[in-house]
């Protein structure tokens, strides 16, 4: 992919639109990032390495299947920013005409 096309592609993926000057600035930044990541190509025999999923090498914690009362205390606050109709959150239509 050409690097100019890459910018339009990223615009679509993240659902934003850049102005010309923004495009120029981001182009420079993206180039730096991509060049930096190119150093990964120098690593040989990648199969010998475990993929890294998490920066800390820790085991994910789990919890027992028991409801918590702390959760109930927070309930009244969590909907403060929503537009409600009969208790439901109002949201846009999801289909085109």
């Amino acid at each position, binding site marked *: 992919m050409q690097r100019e096309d890459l910018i339009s592609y990223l615009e679509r*993926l993240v*659902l934003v639109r850049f102005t010309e000057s923004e495009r120029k600035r981001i182009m420079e930044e993206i180039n730096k990032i991509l060049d930096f990541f190119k150093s990964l190509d120098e690593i040989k025999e990648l199969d010998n390495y475990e*993929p890294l*999923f*998490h*920066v*800390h090498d*820790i*085991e*994910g*914690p*789990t*919890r*027992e*299947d*028991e*409801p*918590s009362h*702390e*959760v109930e205390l*927070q*309930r009244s606050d*969590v*909907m403060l920013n*929503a537009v*409600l*109709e*009969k*208790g*439901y*959150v*109002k*949201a*846009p*239509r*999801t*289909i*085109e005409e």
Partner: protein
Amino acid sequence: MSFEIPVKIGLEIHVQITALKTKLFCATKADYRSEEPNTLLCPTCLGLPGALPKVNKKAIEYAIMVAKALNCRIAPKLIFCRKHYFYPDMVKNYQISQYDGPGSTPIASNGFVRIIVDGKPKIVRIRRINLEEDPGRIHYPTGSLLTSKYSLVDYNRSGIALLEIVTEPDIESPREARIFLEKLIAILEYLGVTDTRLEGAFRVDANISVADQARVEIKNIGSIKDVERALTYEILRQKSIIQKGGTVSRETRHWDSSSKVTVPLRIKEFEEDYRYFPDPDLPPITISKEWIEEIEKRMPELPDARIERFVKQYGLDEYRAQVLVLNKWLADLFEEAAKEYNNYKSLADWLITDFLRWVKEFNVDPSRVKATPKHIVKLLKLLDEGLISVRMAKELMPKIVLEGVDVESFVKQHGFSKLSDESELRRVVEEVFREYPRAVEDARRNPKAINFLVGAVMKKTKGRADPQLTIRIIRELLQSQQ
């Protein structure tokens, strides 16, 4: 129904783990069905900044059970990824899910389910199983996505533990899809993972391609019946495009269950649009062999094993064994009754024909069927002893199913027993002979005409006459009067 043009169907089944008390990543109560909208929420299931998800251990164990039951390979590590998309059902704009791609793996893959289609065994391969969170539930003010000007969202459902089970495109007709889903649901029911009768606990997306044209995805199908309907509709739609010389375009369509059609959706996302990456809030969890073995020990007998056992232990053929086993409650009832009644084939026949028919006819919830195994055993014993006729047994069946009527006392009270007293029956036959002299003449000339007389005796005795005895007496009288 047969489709001459090749049809390839793959299914994506979403099953809520309804056996859980809390959501997948937070300790919020999971049983949302009788609750007011947007009352079972916390910062984690709403994805508020700073909230941290923590995995429900039981959810992992249920996922492993399902994976084992579907003969899957289980991943050594449980890795959660973020799947990004913009849609009102998800507040944080990503769903915590799993990714089947470079560097990541779902909890289980490469499984299969055995089904029987028209008496022939068939394998439907399972591509993968994901453990993920359910998004919120969208409610359309008019009841339909097509006519609603906006949508209303209930986030109580967001964060409920969900299994996404994906098949390979091995299914070749809408009917085969139904047979597969019935088997899958039975397996899930035996495992006690989910109660698929609960609204929304079981949802299907179907991928279908006709005549090797583009794959169309149908979303939002809520029942097995609707899967069959939506697929049949889609096959007809795609066929008519092809027959007119057009090409089917790759798209996502929505099944509108009120108008029973599929309509195109705005979602046109490709995999990269989802920007999958490992969720930094959720470090991988090791799934050790020991853990899997310990879970396997707790697993109940599954449908395939039970079918095999029914064939061996009760001498049933595979068809009967399967009908019983795939209706777990019926198979349980059969086994209880079989402790006290050893004509297993007859027992199976009565259960899968008359009994099951009435349960379906009255649309009785299996958990509310009044009949106990004892009722059935009593009925069959009375039948074997010749105290009631087959016809009477058939008439009594709905009373047993609906009211749990005790057959023995009912028969005593209502004089519902079979008329097998010879002298009494002889009197009835003589009466019939007097009433239908021409039929008697006919029967003398033509042995087949005897059926009319038998019918008349049955009518007079309200079906209580013993048929064998009636025929014998009629024959004797016909000869003696010649």
